[in-house]
């Protein structure tokens, strides 16, 4: 019960820290002082206090977009286990619900973008749905690998390290899968090299351009759910990359917080040393991610024969 409570508290409070850490890392690389790591919290508080400007072109879909997205990501966060603990909600087959919740969020986010009638937002929506068509197969290849390794269809069991640790034969598929998943993570949470959250040119953006017209509390919800999505996908990746377990169970919580901040620093480093790819090269990157996960699956099948 306490663990569930801690899970929910972390899921709700921790995500806005991650973009702050990423930005601090980038600032450090650029030799700047940079905004505080808590900047997104300040932004959220400020946005929630503001009023809203709503376009006259829009309908209820415009408001439903952020709401449904937040609900879907929140539920996905409840399905995802943290560290060695059981997820608050776990049942056989929850991995499919997990993936389709992001589909639900995507449907309503892109529909809300189309609702404004702005050509830029349509552009962003088109890119979002296009790239998802390539990252989704990669995610499912990774799921196949994890399901085969654990013999379970429950995220909690799939992602938990087996008692004796992974056998050395499983290392190669897992490395391939984690590379693939890392790319999926960057694409789904709209980071460099797929999307640049700091850009100011509408023509080159994906996620930010879809939400140009949202303001005030609605925009706050969007920023918050975007950071939560990063948190959820990052936690999934951590299970595979760092299957560490502390001696005492409660120590896993602080360990996890250190790990997820570490992941944010890594993303920050990637963003500092890479440029955003040209839009036409992004499908190539995502197909590569799919191939990494696919070859991981094939290797695993070879070993498990």
């Amino acid at each position, binding site marked *: 019960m306490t663990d569930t409570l801690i899970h929910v508290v972390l899921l709700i409070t921790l995500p806005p820290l991650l973009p702050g850490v990423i930005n601090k890392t980038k600032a450090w690389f650029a030799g700047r002082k940079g905004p505080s790591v808590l900047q997104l919290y300040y932004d959220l508080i400020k946005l*929630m206090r*503001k*009023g*809203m*400007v*709503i*376009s*006259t*072109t*829009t*309908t209820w*879909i415009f408001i439903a977009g952020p*709401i*449904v997205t937040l*609900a879907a990501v*929140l*539920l996905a966060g409840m399905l995802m286990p943290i560290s060695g603990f059981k997820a608050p*909600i776990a049942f*056989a*087959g*929850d991995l*499919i*619900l997990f993936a*389709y*919740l992001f*589909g*639900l969020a*995507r*449907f309503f986010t*892109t*529909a809300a973008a*189309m*609702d404004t*009638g702005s050509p830029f*937002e*349509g552009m962003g*929506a*088109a890119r979002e*749905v*296009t790239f*998802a*068509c*390539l990252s*989704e*197969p990669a995610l*499912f*290849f990774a*799921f*196949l690998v994890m399901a*085969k390794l654990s*013999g*379970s*269809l429950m995220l909690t069991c799939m992602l938990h390290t087996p008692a004796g640790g992974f056998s050395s034969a499983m290392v190669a598929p897992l490395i391939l899968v984690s590379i693939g998943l890392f790319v999926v993570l960057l694409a789904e949470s709209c980071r460099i090299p797929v999307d640049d959250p700091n850009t100011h040119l*509408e023509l080159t953006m994906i996620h930010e351009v879809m939400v*140009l017209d949202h303001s*005030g*509390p609605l925009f706050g*919800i969007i920023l918050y759910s975007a950071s939560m999505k990063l948190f959820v996908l990052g936690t999934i990746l951590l299970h595979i990359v760092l299957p560490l377990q502390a001696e005492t169970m409660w120590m896993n919580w602080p360990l996890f917080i250190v790990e997820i901040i570490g992941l944010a620093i890594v993303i920050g480093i990637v963003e500092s040393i890479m440029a955003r790819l040209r839009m036409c090269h992004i*499908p190539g990157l995502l197909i590569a991610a799919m191939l990494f996960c*696919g070859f991981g699956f094939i290797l695993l099948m070879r070993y498990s024969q």
Partner: protein
Amino acid sequence: MQPMGCRSLTDNLDNIYMLSVQMILVAIVVLSLSGLPGCLCSSRSMAGQRIAVFLMVLASLTGLGGIAVWLKQAAVSALSVPWFLPWGQFSVTVDAISIVFLVPVFVVPMLGAIYGLRYWRQSEHPENGRSLVIFYGLLAGAMALVVVAHDAVLFLIAWEMMAIAAFFASTAEHDYPDVCRAGWIYLIATHIGTLCLIAMFALWRHETGSFALASAQGVSTKFAGTLFVLSFIGFGFKAGVMPLHVWLPGAHANAPSHVSAVMSGVMLKMGVYGIVRMTALLPVTADWWGGAVLTVGAVTGVAGIAYAIGQNDIKRMLAYSSIENIGIIMIGLGLALLGRSHSRPIWVLLGLGGALLHVWNHSLFKSLLFFNAGAIIHACHTRNIDRMGGLAKQMPLLMLLFVIGAAAICALPPLNGFASEWLIYSGLFDALGLDGTAGFPAAAIAAVPLAMIGALAVACFVKMFGAVFLGAPRREMANHHGTLPAGMILPMAALALGCIGVGLFPMMTTTVLDNASKTWASLPGQTASIASAAPLKWITLMGLVLVAFIGLIAFALKKHTQTRIISKAGTWDCGYARPTARIQYTGSSFGQMLVRLFAFILWPKTARPTTGRLFPELAQFKSMVPDAILDRVVTPLFGVLGTYLPMLRVLQRGQTHLYVLYILVIVIILLIFSGIGV
């Protein structure tokens, strides 16, 4: 006393099942003939259509009443009557598989007829209204007869009635050349399929010794394989499996919308029924059956939805999306076939259960979307989504219904598409061999194309939704009716409620699906039901939690913003001085990246303007995605046939004695052959 009581109880049950078969037969007769009384009424009045709709509703409710008995418990009830034909007999059987397919047959055409009362008023279409009503009813009745026929001859008669009725119903507006062309393509395609079926049933008769569609587990492996391939091709034409789908987009797009709904929502499923029925009767021993169906399903699904994204005709998009859904059903069926050949009851349960549930679900949301498309076309007077836009402001209720249908077809929780795809996914993941049992990992890979289909479906329906309903109108509405008539809204609302109901409470369907799975195959150790193989109650719970989350967040936001200033302004135009509705992203531009990504399947055609001179003249850019199979394979092939086959006309002299001579020559040749054989 005890045994006697028992016997009278079973007698009673038998009577109930017999009664239900009779009710279904009455429903079939009344449905088929529902349009005839209208012939006595004026073709310019509504009377004929009203009578037909009344009869159809009555017949469908009778049929559904007959089905109701079966929803709790499975049984097999047969009825056979001798008839005047030299072969076969009038023999019908209702079992759990028939029941699954009878439900959409009785639900969708009934709702379509009610919808048609407003959508295709006979008084406004005196030239074709009467024949449309007649063939619409006949189509519904013939489909019900296909599902219960227990004799190959009766089955083929019903099959042909269905094909012909669909031809006449879908070519109601045969004055337009497009409609005519689509109709002819459909007629040719369906008859090539029927030819395969005739060959298949002839072989069937040869092997089993009768035309009865009874279990034929004793058939030799070689013949079983041949029968399977023939039936898969024959029924595949009707179901719209790639590459046999060529007739489907045109026929669906050019038919009146309620006919499209019935064709797409129900008639395609008759092809699925044929495959399910034949595989139930034949012994499934080889892996290649399931492997082939699974592969064809995955290809059909991905290619179907990729084509849908390339279209800009709303009904062609929906038609291609039907092909995609047939692909999903085939993936489930392929897994079930592998379950048979591997003796894994759980794959049969989840694969077939998911496929059959998807048959229901697709008939719900696809009919909803076709009805919706009809209302949209009514308002915009075009089928081209790039010329629509901003319909949401005029028809908010229609948009709500569209959102439900679109989210359901994208398999988004908490709607019904998710429930059936979730079952199929669970089965596919189980094929990995999770609990240490030997699996069939190659089948599990089908989960990846299924995921891709899901993502592409979101792209397709966001494109359609955005282009039709959202943004600002791209041109003035020629003649928009402020509100839609209730007669069009109610059938859609009923279907939308069905989508929500099945999505939130999929447990309700498990009894029927379990029974159908047991009828389809009885494997050793098969005791489990779908409910125990996949925790469906979690779907209910999660759906409710999701709805609660959305409600809570919306409520909190509403409370929170009550005291804030909410102002209205135009959409942010990035400083552009004079934005117009025409600069909005159209459906074509929305899909352009994906079309280019899938160019290796789609072969898109573009006509680029050449802008050479310093002051370019007015130029046009065109892009379209025609059907590659129809355009690049079928049409050239038939062109070649059309050039060379007329050479055979020299044989056709029109003189009787010459034909008698041909007969004589052939008999002599046959005699010589048989002489050599002996």
